[in-house]
């Protein structure tokens, strides 16, 4: 076969990939096709074919990946259950008197849903459909309304259970249960930061988010407690069924995912929302999302197999370490790369391409593996919000009614404060690493 320097091969792999991605060719097919072509050049057909088949097979028999269809199903099913409307009503009864109460309720609902849903689309859509009309009717400032929905909705992919964590674990060789524990507190911290910001900004500018008029607030407290409990309990029990079993070390994430999926379907049945058509549509949607994610997993596996075996990982590592910026300088560069990629590429692509590259660098720099992974995951939160390629923005634009007059620039300006808050969150995690590591330490000590 041909001889070439690893630097040259790195370019040979990445430049065509970049061209394909920017020209709009499907990510998976570009990764697989380019990986194969380069591998054929350097290894010949026999070895290439064998390695690629084993990559496909490896993804198929991976027990952890099985949680992907299950969590996707769970999220889509919960979307159909109507549980979020009930919850929003209940939370709003309590948050009404607070300035910006609807936006606070949106973030709170996003946080609770996040603990039950693992896909970003489902929670943004749910929040948008419920909270946006309500905020529009109360004359909330458009930017604040859109920002809180996008930010609250994207918590779904950070706070466990989350498909992103399920996918990240096997790629970085970290237990998914451990990632779940690590993501819990940072998720709540972001939620708290969002809520604090909303309250402060609405205190300073009351017309951004007027509180509920007094006439709508009069309801005996016992009734309010009753409504809160009846709407919160089913969701909480599902959350406990999934997270509790993982955190207490009872069940593996895949097992918890299946329990959660069954429990959500039962909840739907109890609310009389489950019928054959709903189940069928949910299943169809589930297999499409799952296949879409897993083909990227397989093809990216082929790409990185070629990439790493030809010594390109070292090239990348030396390029970053060679900048002689010191430990934190290199750390900053990695995060800048992830942030910039997040503006243009899907998170699935970033995880499958970047994580095999940066994980060894993080170790070489002497960072705690779990902490390093979680920092990247929190960083990726921003990728859902940063235009031009931002899922949360697309979804919200898709559900906004034309008569509300919500333009893309409202949404974009709305999410900027929340992006800054995520950066604050990242900074806090650097200063206090126990935000990430505290819960895993505590739970593994018993």
């Amino acid at each position, binding site marked *: 076969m041909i001889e070439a320097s690893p630097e040259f091969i790195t370019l040979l792999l990445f430049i065509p990939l970049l061209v394909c991605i920017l020209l709009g060719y*499907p990510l998976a097919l570009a990764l697989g*096709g380019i990986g194969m072509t380069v591998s054929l050049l350097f290894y010949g057909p026999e070895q290439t074919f064998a390695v690629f088949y084993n990559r496909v097979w490896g993804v198929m028999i991976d027990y952890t990946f099985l949680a992907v269809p*299950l969590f996707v199903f769970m999220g889509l099913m919960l979307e159909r259950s109507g549980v979020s409307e009930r919850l929003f009503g209940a939370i709003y009864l309590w948050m009404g008197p607070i300035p910006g109460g609807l936006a606070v309720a949106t973030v709170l609902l996003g946080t609770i849903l996040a603990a039950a849903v693992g896909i970003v689309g489902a929670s943004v859509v749910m929040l948008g459909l419920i909270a946006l009309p309500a905020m529009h009717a109360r004359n909330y400032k458009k930017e604040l309304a859109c920002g809180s929905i996008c930010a609250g909705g994207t918590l779904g992919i950070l706070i466990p259970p989350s498909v992103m964590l399920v996918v990240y674990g096997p790629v970085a060789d970290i237990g998914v249960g451990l990632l779940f524990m690590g993501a819990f507190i940072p998720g709540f911290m972001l939620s708290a930061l969002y809520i604090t910001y909303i309250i402060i900004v609405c205190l300073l500018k009351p017309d951004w988010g007027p509180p509920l008029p007094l006439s709508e607030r009069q309801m005996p407290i016992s009734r309010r407690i009753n409504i809160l409990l009846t709407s919160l309990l089913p969701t909480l029990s599902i959350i406990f069924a999934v997270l509790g079993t993982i955190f207490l070390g009872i069940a593996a994430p895949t097992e918890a995912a299946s329990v959660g999926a069954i429990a959500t379907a039962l909840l739907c049945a109890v609310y009389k929302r489950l019928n054959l058509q709903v189940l069928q549509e949910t299943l169809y949607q589930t*297999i499409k999302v799952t296949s879409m994610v897993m083909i990227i997993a397989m093809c990216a596996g082929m790409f990185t197999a070629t990439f790493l075996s030809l010594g390109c990982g070292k090239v990348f590592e030396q390029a970053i370490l060679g900048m002689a910026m010191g430990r934190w300088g290199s750390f900053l560069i990695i995060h800048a790369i992830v942030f910039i990629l997040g503006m243009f590429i899907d998170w699935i692509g970033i995880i499958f391409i970047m994580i095999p590259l940066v994980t060894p660098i993080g170790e070489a720099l002497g960072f705690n593996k779990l902490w390093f992974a979680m920092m990247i995951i929190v960083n990726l939160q921003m990728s859902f919000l940063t235009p031009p390629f931002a899922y949360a923005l697309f979804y919200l634009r898709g559900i906004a009614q034309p008569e509300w007059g919500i333009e893309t620039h409202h949404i974009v300006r709305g999410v900027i404060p929340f992006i800054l808050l995520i950066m604050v969150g990242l900074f806090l995690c650097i200063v206090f690493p126990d935000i990430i590591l505290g819960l895993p330490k505590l739970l593994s000590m018993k």
Partner: protein
Amino acid sequence: MGFMRSYSKWVENISEFVGKGASWLTVALMLSIGYEVIMRYGFRAPTLWSFDISYMLGGSIYLLGLAWVLKEDRNVRVDIISCRFSPKTQLYINILFTVLLFFPMAVMLLKISWERMIHSWRILEKASYTVWYPPIYPLRTLVFFAFLFWLLQGICTFYRNIEKLKGDRS
């Protein structure tokens, strides 16, 4: 091109039918793992078969959905630049990369999965991930057929794109 037209119709139906059928395996997957959870944590009697059955179901779900995803054009792509191109340019890009990247990859996967399937049947291969040692040649066969449907759908999508290009011209 009467043949290609009826071919495309057939293949699109197959892709959709296979994807929809396979989606029901998700229910089986939930029940398989759910049963294992009940038996293991409820009765301290873990099953022998759940692990193997589950990854077989999961692998089938991932692969059998591929052709449908391709048919519905649901693959993840970054269209921030390409959406500014004319539809014709977009079609040209897609056709070019399909020839350069998709067809070689799909043919390769089909060839190797064929070889593995034949080999697996010849030795009546068993999976050795658990002590249950189930036969694994059905799953190897499924991999072959999934990639076959994928390639057939790819040819169909390719044909549709060329038709669209022709339609633009006339």
